[in-house]
């Protein structure tokens, strides 16, 4: 499992008045395999931006984002896409499932980016859905409860068994019971499966379950930097 190591990560933009507004400024940040890291902070503190930079969805102005030996900030976009596909599983607040597809088809979506047939991964998709207690793999996800939908999203994130899981407010749209199930699942992925789990959240239960809480304010880490 890879270790995340961020150095001198900085992202700024022109505020339209000739000044540079700093969105994120991290001299250093690390996360180890099997560690469940929660990122907290007020709105606009740069939590989601950090997540997108760690996933290679956005490019920093300067600095490195190293997963083991791979500095994804230095990769081209196509290589970052390919890397992300295999190394990162994403979980979102609003699940971002394809409503017209079944649970199983949703789990298989990342497979469509790589190969013409997802048939080879179908057993794994079914196993993941069973693991997360999703009852009807062939049912359209639009008919699922919010908790079930998030569990489908978790299964999708694990299709390629990535070493890192990045979650953006994974419990914000769920009730307490469903949220607790997701937190438990994320913690298990870190502790039992040895994955690096980084979750942006305001949820106290999630923050309590995390191994470490990193607090951001105005783009800077104010607490919990390793």
């Amino acid at each position: 499992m890879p270790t995340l190591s961020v150095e001198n990560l900085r992202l700024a933009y022109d505020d339209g008045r000739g000044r540079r507004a700093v969105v994120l400024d991290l001299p250093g940040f690390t996360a180890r395999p099997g560690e469940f890291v929660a990122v907290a902070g007020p709105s606009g503190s740069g939590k989601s931006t950090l997540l997108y930079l760690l996933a290679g969805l956005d490019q920093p102005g300067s600095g490195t984002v190293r997963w083991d030996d791979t500095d994804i900030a230095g990769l081209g976009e196509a290589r970052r896409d390919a890397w992300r596909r295999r190394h990162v599983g994403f979980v979102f607040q609003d699940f971002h499932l394809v409503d017209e597809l079944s649970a199983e088809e949703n789990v298989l979506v990342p497979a469509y980016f790589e190969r013409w047939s997802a048939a080879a991964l179908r057993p794994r998709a079914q196993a993941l859905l069973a693991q997360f207690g999703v009852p009807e793999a062939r049912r359209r996800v639009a008919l699922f409860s919010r908790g079930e939908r998030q569990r489908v999203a978790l299964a999708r994130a694990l299709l390629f068994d990535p070493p890192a899981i990045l979650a953006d407010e994974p419990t914000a749209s769920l009730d307490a019971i469903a949220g607790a199930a997701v937190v438990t699942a994320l913690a298990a992925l870190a502790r039992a499966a040895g994955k690096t789990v980084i979750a942006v959240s305001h949820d106290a239960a999630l923050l309590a379950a995390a191994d470490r809480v990193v607090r951001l304010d105005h783009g800077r880490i104010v607490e919990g930097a390793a």
Partner: protein
Amino acid sequence: MNPFPIVLATLRGHRLTCGLFVLLVALAVALGVAVTAQERALRKGSARAADAFDLIVAAPGSQTDVLLAAVYLRPTAMELVPGDALARLYAEPRATLVAPLAFGDSVRGNVIVGTTAAFVDHLSGGLAEGRSFAAATEAVVGALAPIALGEQLKPIHGMHEAESDEDHADAGHEHEGEHDAHGAEDGHREDGHGVGEAHEAAAGAGSPPVAPPAAGDAAAEGHAHEDGDHDGEAAGVPADHHDGEAEDHDHDAHGAEVAEGHQHGLAFTVVGRMKPTGTPWDRAVVVPVEYVWAVHGLASGHAAGETRIGPPFAAERLPGVPAVVVSPDSVAAAYGLRNAYRDTRTTAFFPAEALGELYAILGDVARLLGLLTLATQSLVVAAIAVGVLTLLELYRRRFALLRALGASRAFVFVTVWSFVAGLVAVGAILGLGLGYGVAILVSAVLAGSTGIAMPAGIGASEFLLAGGIVAVGALLALIPAAISYRRPPVAALRQS
């Protein structure tokens, strides 16, 4: 990569909108396909209808009018080919078939055409049932004419049947007036007739075949028809047909009657049915030309007292006819005859020449329709592209999600392009079928009204048109695809 599950999911997500897009494209393509397929069917059908008419000889004037009368059986006012010119044609060694055509009457709305048995055989390649006419008062009918074999009919003078035959028969009427210019042999204009003008009431004892009066008589006599109360004098004509003292009548007055239609007294019996020809002749009633001459009081074309029909004719007793169909024995003969009969008294032309003029007009209209269709199709496809851009805004987050899950820009590009191009392609294929269906329907309607078989088909031009739309759609699809390709996913993800 395999974008199709996402494309299909997107289609399913907006079934109604996507269905509307497809329908719009289908209608636009169908419009173009129907126009081009129908135009080609019209050209084919009209050209095929003229196939049996190798060379047409007529009086100088509008070739189109002659073509419409001879081939499409829509006779109008026409000058006549003089009898001596017809005799000359019969003497032509280069002609394998010479067939006079005479019009002017109808029965139950079906045009009556006078010609020869040989031309019937030439046109339909034999009969479907019965036999060909062997006497002046016998007739064969076209394959689609709603007349049964064995029926005895009396013609209505003119092309429109104002009342039923029975009503006319009961009324029985006579025409009186001044003929301004007589002499069928001279060939002169008569509205709605096409066959001579001086109608001699010549009746006599006997039954068909008819032996109409001498040509000289015909020129001198007036026109009189009545049922049952005329004195006859000419041999071979039923006693109840023509009045021996027929009076001259005015042409204008007669013209008015043509529009209304009035019944001739001479009945004929249907003895055969032609094979289908796919031409207006399928609804025609074909009688010996001698019958038409007799009905209109003209010379019989044969020696006095002779009752047979068909060639050889007596040259000095041949009345004029509106048109003569000639089959030359070679291409050289065709051009030779065409040149030989182009003088002050006759003109000769190949149907293709007159069709060419008609097609030029048709082509102009078709081109205009084609341009309008193209404009419509372009607008539809452009409207779809705009609609798709709007739709893609709704899916902006979905594509951002795909990027977050590891999809490349190329995957998003191909997905969006496939989505838009797929809509256009499906619409084009449906439009091709729909246009074909419309063309078949219009062909059937036109065939019903004109009698011309117009087999509508999908050809290269229709495939080209549909392919063109698909190509334009594929090009336009690049726009939303490129927009989606360039759009960074983070902004859309932040909308969560």
